[in-house]
């Protein structure tokens, strides 16, 4: 029995050593993964073209009522801080892209509504629940990541202003 225990320990040790590396989702402080996505109203948008600006990525779905309510608040935020260099990009994770497109066309916003057809962007940012918002600073690094339904409150606006005040 002692012999079996010893061999089991060694086997577990070897398995621990050869454990495959699981790529982690983007963490705060890391460079935001670049991407290009089609917009619901036409055209394509690439994240890296907004280097030098503060980017607010909002992941949403037409099935999520909290997300759709948040979109109107994001529109107000965008209007207020656009001239200071804030760019808002809403990324839909709907499985039915036609539904997402219809929703976007029925509810026009002041920022592009992007369609993540292959779910590559939501995977890269580790989106596990909705709504999720990501704040990216002027240097292209993820600075804040919020994954709850607290919404756009004063503390969130303070975070946005902190990034906008940071010159490149």
């Amino acid at each position, binding site marked *: 029995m002692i012999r079996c*225990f010893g061999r089991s320990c060694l086997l577990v040790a070897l398995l621990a050593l050869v454990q495959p590396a699981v790529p982690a989702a983007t963490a705060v402080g890391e460079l935001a993964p670049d991407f290009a996505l089609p917009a619901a109203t036409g055209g394509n948008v*690439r994240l890296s073209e907004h280097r030098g600006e503060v980017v607010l990525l909002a992941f949403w779905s037409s099935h999520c009522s909290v997300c759709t309510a948040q979109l109107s608040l994001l529109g107000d935020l965008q209007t207020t801080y656009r001239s200071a260099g804030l760019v808002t990009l809403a990324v839909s994770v709907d499985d039915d892209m036609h539904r997402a497109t219809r929703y976007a066309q029925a509810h026009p916003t002041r920022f592009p509504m992007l369609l993540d057809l292959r779910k590559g962007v939501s995977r890269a940012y580790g989106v596990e629940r909705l709504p999720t918002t990501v704040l990216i600073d002027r240097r292209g690094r993820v*600075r804040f990541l919020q994954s709850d339904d607290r919404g756009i409150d004063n503390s969130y606006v303070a975070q946005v202003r902190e990034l906008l005040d940071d010159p490149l």
Partner: protein
Amino acid sequence: MRTANRTWQRLAPVALALCLVTQWVRAAEPPAKPSGAPAAVAAPAPATIAAPEAAPEASAAAPAGDATGEGSTRALDEQIQDLKQQVVDLNKDLFVLEEELLFPANTQVAVFVSMDVGSFFGLDSVTLRVDNREVINYLYTPREVAALVKGGVQRLYVGNLKAGSHELVALFSGKGPNDRDYRRGASIKFEKGVGAKYLELKISDKTRRQQPEFEIKDWE
């Protein structure tokens, strides 16, 4: 034999404990710090490499700089500019080495995109398939299209292929004449020999037919 078994039984838990500690330490490593840290991480290496060269310069500059404060500040500025230039040159060399390592010339295949269009085609995306395998699907923003129309050439894809016959298929999507959705393909069979292979996807206007034309050129 019994002694060996006992030793084995004693060492195995120790090995397990060491591996678990190693995994814990790796997991507990702090994440990358924001903005300033990478520059700070990169800077010390060249600074230490350059230090032996800079030290005699500094010691030579110091007596001259002692004469006037401005002189020493100017010398310091020059040293900093030299260090910056060394960092830039090192970065360039590293990039070239990385390219040569990842895509050696004997297997390298590169595909470029160029446009010579006016009003017949608005490029939206290009999909490349090499030997029936999709290798890239690139979406173009208005800024990128404007750069192509101005004469820019984009390196769309670089990869490795074995010597022999291969087929490249390119699918172009966008807006055609009368602003209608437009989707066209072009293909080429080519021989990959020793040396890098360069292919160009050319999008141009054909005024006579009032249609865009898509062709693939082999830079032989």
